């Protein structure tokens, strides 16, 4: 492969990098109006999206494809250990990541035109998206972990970019500490796997040859492999917010500026799930050689043990996330806990490790990109309209803002998994895959259904507040006396200089358009999911066949 064709394979990533550099350049030249940098970012993301669609063989744009179709979803040549490898599931995830970035970038264009740090915000969004794209094509553990770092480092800075707000600075600090700990643990785990396998290539790791060898030789390999994978579970679980490692997420999503929360919850969190696909699907599928575990346990094979562990993590994550979401008074904290429980649903797909389960998990990621970014973007819009951070502050919004409330209600219903929304489709595919897989996986479906029922309770509570509590019931809080709880939320944008009121009664065209796009996607794909479901199912099948 010559350098030029290699570079062409990465055309979307190169575009994002160029876009980020252009944003910083434009900023340095003094053109720091949000309209300028925002449109550069949105156009870049759309172009990248176009080329990824082309690589996926999407008919109307297929002629733009840079990667020859024969190079996607094939096995690497025997004996080679490629750093990156194109799979159609990876390309699908690239589109999901780009869509998340697109929604946030478009919505943020409704922020005050003269806001400080707009260029920093957009540049970092583009750089983080570049890292997310690289995660989706990784086929080497170190490549994967460094791509995750390329996402994490801009994310820490994104949380802190306003620099004037104590809450977001504290959130950035917590995010950084937890992120650094997870990085240390993952790289340490990777070093053990390198010791056991002699390489960090995921195709080799997936086949689990060293576990088999170690079992035959009775050497120290199983110990290295088991410790390595355990540390990787811990390190990656921080990224995807699985339950023992979830505590940071709530504070970070709560303290970060609203648009950044949308990007973190709807976008960057999902790289953890794809990393789980890449790292753990192989052992789940192939590590079937039973060996004597240390301490004389066994003979048990590694794959099934991993499946049990992942299943337990999934159930604990969704339950704890939902129960804690029930008790929240703040809207953003409630959404953060619901985001944690959604990660539990997604993990079911990895634990089962069949093609339908993988399809369900990917679909859940797609749905979550829209539902969760959408919900956080509505929260941002509401904050712009003077609604406080507490759920109680939203009372009566249904009468004041019927369209915004309707869109928010739709997103919440989709998160709860109501029929005719995309959230229902993804959960249906996922849970039916769990039932199909038989065995104890049926209980995963049962736990998922019970949790969905539980989640209806707290989403329903929000809907009740919005639609059935009269605004008069609240003693007029906008008065300065009620400002103390609201002030911290409003302080998220301390640089808001008094500007002309935005269009559409303070909402702004860009944000309104974004929320409308989210609502339309949720309904259309909820009623007619076929065009997405079928190619995604085929992609998942190829992915399983490759055994990455």
């Amino acid at each position: 492969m010559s350098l030029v064709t290699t570079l062409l394979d990465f055309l979307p990533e190169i575009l994002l990098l160029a876009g980020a550099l252009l944003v910083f350049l434009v900023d340095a030249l003094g053109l720091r109006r949000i309209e300028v940098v925002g449109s550069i970012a949105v156009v870049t993301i759309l172009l990248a999206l176009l080329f990824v669609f082309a690589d996926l063989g999407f008919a109307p744009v297929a002629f733009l494809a840079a990667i020859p179709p024969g190079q996607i979803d094939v096995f690497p040549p025997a004996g080679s250990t490629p750093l990156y490898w194109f799979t159609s599931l990876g390309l699908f995830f690239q589109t999901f990541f780009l869509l998340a970035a697109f929604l946030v970038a478009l919505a943020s264009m409704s922020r005050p035109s003269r806001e400080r740090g707009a260029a920093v915000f957009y540049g970092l969004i583009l750089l983080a998206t570049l890292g997310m794209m690289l995660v989706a094509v990784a086929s080497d553990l170190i490549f994967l972990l460094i791509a995750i770092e390329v996402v994490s480092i801009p994310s820490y800075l994104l949380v802190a970019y306003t620099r004037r707000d104590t809450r977001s600075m504290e959130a950035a600090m917590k995010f950084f500490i937890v992120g650094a700990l997870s990085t240390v643990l993952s790289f340490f785990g990777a070093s053990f796997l390198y010791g056991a396998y002699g390489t960090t290539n995921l195709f080799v790791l997936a086949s689990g040859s060293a576990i088999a060898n170690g079992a035959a030789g009775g050497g120290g390999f199983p110990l290295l492999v088991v410790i390595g994978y355990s540390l990787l579970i811990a390190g990656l679980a921080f990224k995807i917010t699985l339950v023992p490692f979830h505590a940071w997420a709530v504070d970070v999503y709560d303290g970060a500026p609203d648009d950044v929360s949308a990007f973190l919850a709807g976008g960057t969190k999902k790289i953890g799930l794809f990393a789980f696909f890449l790292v753990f699907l192989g052992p789940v599928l192939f590590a079937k050689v039973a060996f004597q575990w240390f301490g004389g346990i066994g003979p048990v094979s590694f794959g099934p043990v991993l499946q049990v562990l992942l299943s337990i993590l999934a159930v604990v994550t969704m339950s704890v996330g939902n129960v804690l979401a029930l008790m929240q008074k703040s809207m953003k904290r409630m959404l953060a806990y619901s985001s944690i429980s959604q990660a539990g649903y997604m993990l079911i797909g990895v634990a089962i490790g069949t093609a339908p389960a993988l399809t369900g998990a990917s679909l859940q990621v797609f749905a979550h990109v829209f539902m969760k970014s959408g919900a956080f973007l509505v929260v941002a819009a509401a904050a712009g309209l003077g609604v406080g951070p507490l759920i109680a502050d939203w009372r009566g919004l249904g009468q004041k803002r019927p369209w915004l409330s309707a869109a928010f209600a739709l997103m919440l219903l989709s998160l709860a998994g109501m029929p005719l929304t995309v959230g229902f489709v993804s959960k249906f595919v996922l849970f039916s895959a769990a039932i199909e897989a038989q065995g104890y996986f049926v209980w995963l479906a049962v736990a998922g259904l019970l949790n969905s029922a539980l989640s209806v309770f707290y989403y329903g509570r929000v809907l009740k507040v919005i639609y059935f509590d009269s605004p008069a019931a609240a003693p007029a809080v906008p008065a300065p006396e009620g400002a103390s709880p609201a002030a911290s939320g409003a302080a998220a944008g301390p640089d808001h200089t008094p500007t002309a009121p935005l269009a559409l009664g303070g909402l702004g065209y860009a944000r309104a358009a974004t929320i409308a796009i989210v609502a339309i996607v949720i309904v259309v794909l909820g009623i007619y999911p076929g065009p997405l479901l079928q190619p995604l199912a085929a992609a998942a099948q190829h992915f399983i066949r490759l055994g990455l």
Partner: protein
Amino acid sequence: MTSLSIVGFVGLSTALLAISTFGILTRRNFILLLISIEIGMNAAILDFLYFAAFPTGSHYFDGLQGQSIAIVLIGLAATEVAVGLAIVLALNRLKGSINVAEASSLRE
């Protein structure tokens, strides 16, 4: 060199990781926290170098890979600490303190 056994070396790096994790979880001073993070990254780097020098017998083994990874990781650790220092500076300017325990405005 070969007098060091795999158990001894892996034990050393594991001890470094333990020190690092303990430091990250208990230190209240952000600078000491950054040092703890560095110790943890160095534990991983040490591991890669050790396994690159003493193959454990896989036929996929490539010693050069481990050494290159070590170099890349040194750069990565530096990047991370640079970002951490940026956050410390901004926090110090804002609150006049770099004590992690004082960051408590995010409560329900």
